[in-house]
C-alpha cells in the first residue's frame, strides 16, 4: 500500500515537473563561437562556468569562422552565435530571422600588410599594386573604402584566408588585407620583409546574435546569457592576466600565450549597441548592393534597426545602448 502511494506521488511529481519544464523557457542553449581571443567575455564565462550561476547550461561549439556559425544559427543548429558584423548585414539584407544582442568587442588595429616589394608608407603606395584579399568579406570592404578614399586603383586578387600569408611570402601579391587572426602569421613568415600600415577607417565589430525564436520566446534565457557575458566582461576588465589565461585554456593552446598578451590592447572589450555600429552596417550594405551581390534592397538605418535588439542589454546597463 505504502509502495503504491509512493509511486503515485512520484508519478504526480514527475508529471508536474514535466509540465513545468515544457512550459518553461529553454535553459540548455547552444552557442557557436568563433576565435575566443576576439570575445574574451565568452572565454571567461566558459572557463568559470558563469552560465550555471545564471541558471543556464551552455554548450559552446567552436566554428572556424563567425560566418559559418551564423549559417548554423540560421539553419537552426544554434541558439546564439558570435561573429563579425558583416554577416549580420548580409542576414538583414536577405531578410533572415535573427537579432543582434550586443557588440562584444572592437578590433582597433586593422592594417594593410605587404612584403618588401613595395615601400608601404601610405595608402597611396598601393596604387597599381596587386593586393590580395578575401573577396566579399569585411576586409575587402575595408580595402575598397581605403582605395576609394585615397582615389587610387589597384588590382584586387581573391585569396581565401589561409592562403593569404603564403601568397604574400611567395610574392603572388604585393600587399594584402586579411583577418586579424592572420597578422601574427604574416609577421612570423615574412620576418624582415614584413611591412604594415595601420588604418583607421574600419574597426571590426564582434557581435553576439540570437535566433528570433530565442529572443521572442525565451527572453529570460537571453537575459541570463547576457548577464553571464557581462560578468565575464567585468573579469576581463578587472583581471586581464587571468582573462588571457582563460582564453588560452578555452582555446586549448590555439594561440601562443605571448600572442594573446600582445594582441590584447588592440581590442576594446565592451558590450554595447550604438549608432556607430548601425552606421557601419549601412555603409557595408551600400557596398554589398553596389557590388551586385544582393540586389533590390536599400541599405538604410531603417532596414537594420529592427535587427538590433537592444532591449535586453539596456536592462543590464542603460548607458550601453544608444540607438536612435
Amino acid at each position: 500500500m505504502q509502495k503504491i502511494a509512493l509511486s503515485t506521488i512520484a508519478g504526480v511529481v514527475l508529471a508536474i515537473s514535466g509540465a513545468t519544464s515544457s512550459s518553461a523557457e529553454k535553459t540548455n542553449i547552444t552557442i557557436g563561437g568563433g576565435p575566443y581571443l576576439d570575445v574574451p567575455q565568452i572565454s571567461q564565462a566558459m572557463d568559470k562556468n558563469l552560465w550555471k550561476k545564471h541558471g543556464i547550461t551552455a554548450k559552446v561549439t567552436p566554428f572556424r569562422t563567425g560566418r559559418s556559425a551564423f549559417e548554423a544559427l540560421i539553419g537552426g543548429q544554434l541558439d546564439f552565435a558570435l561573429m563579425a558584423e558583416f554577416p549580420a548585414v548580409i542576414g538583414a539584407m536577405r531578410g533572415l530571422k535573427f537579432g543582434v544582442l550586443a557588440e562584444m568587442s572592437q578590433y582597433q588595429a586593422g592594417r594593410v600588410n605587404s612584403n618588401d616589394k613595395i615601400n608601404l608608407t601610405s595608402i597611396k603606395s598601393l596604387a597599381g599594386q596587386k593586393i590580395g584579399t578575401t573577396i566579399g568579406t569585411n576586409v575587402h570592404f575595408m580595402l575598397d573604402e581605403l582605395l576609394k578614399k585615397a582615389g587610387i586603383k589597384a588590382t584586387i586578387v581573391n585569396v581565401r584566408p589561409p592562403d593569404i600569408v603564403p601568397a604574400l611570402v611567395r610574392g603572388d601579391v604585393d600587399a594584402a588585407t586579411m583577418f586579424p587572426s592572420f597578422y601574427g602569421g604574416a609577421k612570423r613568415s615574412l620576418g624582415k620583409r614584413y611591412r604594415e600600415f595601420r588604418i583607421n577607417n574600419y574597426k571590426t565589430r564582434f557581435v553576439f546574435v540570437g535566433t528570433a525564436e530565442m529572443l521572442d520566446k525565451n527572453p529570460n534565457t537571453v537575459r541570463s546569457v547576457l548577464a553571464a557575458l557581462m560578468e565575464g566582461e567585468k573579469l576581463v576588465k578587472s583581471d586581464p592576466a587571468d582573462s588571457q589565461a582563460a582564453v588560452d585554456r578555452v582555446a586549448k593552446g590555439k594561440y601562443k600565450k605571448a600572442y594573446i598578451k600582445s594582441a590584447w590592447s588592440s581590442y576594446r572589450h565592451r558590450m554595447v549597441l550604438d549608432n556607430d555600429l548601425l552606421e557601419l552596417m549601412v555603409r557595408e550594405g551600400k557596398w554589398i548592393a553596389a557590388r551586385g551581390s544582393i540586389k533590390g534592397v536599400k541599405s538604410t538605418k531603417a532596414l537594420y534597426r529592427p535587427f538590433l535588439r537592444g532591449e535586453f542589454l539596456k536592462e543590464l546597463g542603460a548607458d550601453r545602448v544608444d540607438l536612435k
Partner: protein
Amino acid sequence: MTNQLNQLLKVAASLTGVVVVWWAVAISGLINPLLFPTPYTVLIAAKELYEDGILISDLGISLARASIGFVIGAILGISVGILTARTRFFAIALGPFLNLLRPIPAIALVPIAIVWFGIGEGSKYFVIAYTVFLAVWLNTHHGTAHVAQTYIRAARSLGASRLREFFEVIIPAAAPHIVVGLRLGAALAFLSLVAAELSGASAGIGFRLQDARDYIRTDRMFVGLIELGILGALLDQFFVYVGNKLVHWEQL
C-alpha cells in the same frame, strides 16, 4: 530517329518530374525559401547573372581552366598508363606510388598546390590535371595491360614488328578503356574545378558558388550547380559521340 525522340522525351519527362517535386517542396513552407529557392527564383537569379555578364564570363573562364587541366592530365595519363602497362621498369617504379595517390581527393591537394604553384592559374591546372590524370592512367593501364594474348601472338606469327604490334594491336585493343578513362576524367575535371577555384580566383563557376554562399544567395548557388550539371552532361555526351566514332567496334 524514333529511338532518339523517345530518349529525348524520357529525359524531358524525368527532368520535368524533378522540377515539379522541387517546386512543390520549395512552396510547401517546410523549408525557408531563402535557403531552398523555387525553380522560378533560380531562373530569375540566372537571368540576373546573365544580364550582368557574369554567367557567360564565368562559364568561359571555368571551361578554359577545365579544358587546359583536362588536356594536361589526359596526355600524362595516357602516356604513363601505356608505360606502366607495357614496361616492367615503370610498372615497378610508378605503379605502387600511383595507387597510393588514387584515394587522395583533389580538394586535399588545394593547399599544397597553392604553396607550390601560387594563387595563379598554375595551381588550378595542377589540381584539375591531377584528378584527370589518375582516372585516365588507371583506365589506360588496365586496357593496355589486358590486351588478349591471342591478338599479340597472331600479330607476331604474321611477322608484325614491335612498333606495328603496338600501334595496330595494342592501342586499338586498349582504345575503349582509354576512351572510358577520358570520359570519366572529363566529369572529374568539373568536380575538381570547384575545389581549384576556391582560392586565387575572382571569377569562374567555383568562385561564384563560394561568393553566393558568402551572401546566402542559394538561388545563385543553384544556378552554379545546374551550370556544372549541364556542362558535365553535355561533355559526357560529346565523349560518347566521339568515342563511338573512334572506337566504332565497341558500344560505349
